[in-house]
């Protein structure tokens, strides 16, 4: 029955595609390569995580494999500093050329968020890149 064969062929081809994209042995979210020296207030970081969840960031991003693996954020803070992280989050002019038009439009909506929430979000992202940094209470 050709229809069954087609169904089976599609499942096999899709699995092959999945394997080609993800050769066995590679993990989708590698640990941070560069330990980041950061002074982070755990309450601010926790608030940042709340904002992250409330804004449904996992629709497009993943953290530790949870959420949309299209754009993992696990070591974003290892490559970008705080100002750049903020710029990307709100789709600022400085990053307009780096993002697709659709993405930019979606991110611009976050410019409406209160400044403390945005700062907390950045702190949360930075905490992801420094999993072993002992959190110290102090000004961020």
């Amino acid at each position, binding site marked *: 029955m050709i229809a069954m064969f087609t169904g089976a062929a599609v499942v096999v081809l899709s699995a092959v595609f999945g394997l080609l994209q*993800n050769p066995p042995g590679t993990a989708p979210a590698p640990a941070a390569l560069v330990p980041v020296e950061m002074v982070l207030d755990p309450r601010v970081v926790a608030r940042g995580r709340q904002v992250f969840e409330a804004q449904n960031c996992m629709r497009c991003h*993943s953290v530790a494999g949870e959420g949309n693996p*299209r754009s993992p954020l696990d070591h974003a803070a290892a490559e970008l500093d705080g100002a750049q992280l903020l710029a990307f989050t709100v789709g600022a002019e400085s990053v307009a050329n780096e993002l697709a038009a659709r993405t930019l439009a979606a991110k611009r909506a976050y410019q409406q968020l209160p400044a403390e929430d945005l700062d907390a979000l950045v702190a949360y992202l930075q905490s992801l890149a420094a999993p072993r940094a002992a959190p110290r209470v102090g000004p961020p």
Partner: protein
Amino acid sequence: MLRSRKFWLALYLGAIVLPLLVLLVEERPRPGGFWWDFSLALGYSALAMMGIQFALTARFKVPTAPFGIDLIYYFHRYLATIATLLVVAHALILLWRHPAAVGSVDPRSAPAHMSLGWLALLAFLALVASSLWRKQLGIEYDRWRRLHVALAVLGLVFAVVHVLGAGSYLESPLKRGLWLSLVVFWLGLTVYVRVLRPAWLARRPWVVTGIRKERGRSWTLTVKPDGPHRVFDYHPGAFAWLTLRASPWAMREHPFSIASSPMRPGSLEFTIKELGDFTNRIGEIKPGERAWVDGPYGSFGIDRFPNARGYIFVAGGVGIAPLMSMLRALDDRGDHRPKWLFYGNSDYERIVLREEIDAIAARIGMKVVHVLCEAGPDWRGERGYVDAEVMRRHLPADLDGLDCFVCGPEPMIRLAERSLGQLGMPLARVHSEIFDIA
């Protein structure tokens, strides 16, 4: 020249695989883990398979000719059901492995492309359910046709918007362009079948010239072109889509086998049995009424096998219609090759076209074996169904070079095929057309 089945099958498989290959054009998308990429690939393929349904059912004569229209519809049912299951798998895998990426189902808080994805899934499930269980759900045939087209188009459009909104694989304009072109093509087919072709037909009206009551709750309807256009050329065994008391755009066409002989141009005859919503009222049609005829379609018939040593015909009830076309044509051509007709009916008085069959049989050297399942005690002929025992009593031991044509309800065809197989007839020489698909 007919292209072979292999050609169209290859083209079809290519059409399934092509959208996945498009994804690999230019930069590959960032890997997201096996389950993520697997489930997205399933979604893309399922959408491509949905698009192909439009091509399968667009009534193109050339690609469907090597297979037969009934097979195409059966295939359509299976493939569309499997494609829907793949869409369900796509959604379930993502819900299982990446629920945060799927987000809330509530349309008030979810982005539009996600809500449309769920709507597309619902549309496809409704399509499958309303089609597989149309009669149990009590959906009248003409209403079901319209619902089917509406749900199919909506499902495809919603699915495409979902893909363009959610598709992390379609970042580049080239890929988006390729996908959009595919979709425009599929939808264009719908425009062809539902708008362009009816417009062409509307300029070629036909008129009913006769309606005659036959045995077995059947009627013979005669139509001829009402204008400068002529009856199309057709092979004995072909069918056409007939529209009565409606316009060509109304989607009220019904497929019927042409029962007349193509050797007599000028008019067409259909032999129609009272079996459903539309056919139960065929007796009310009057001469002079408007008709629309779209044809010919189908490849079932003797003319594809002109060098047969002889023919075996097996019919059940109104399955005699396409075979009548063949018998009448053989009669007109003065054919004297050996022939047999096994004709299953309930009782002697309800044998459709009985007298004409006996007359033709005498002229073309055909042995007629009536097989009745509800005959009275006076009946001396075969009883029950057309099975191997009945055939063995009337067919020669050597069936080499004979071609067999079977038409009727599906269980009858299966029985005939098994029986002929038991008698040593190769299945490749048994050709069938199934009535009553929807």
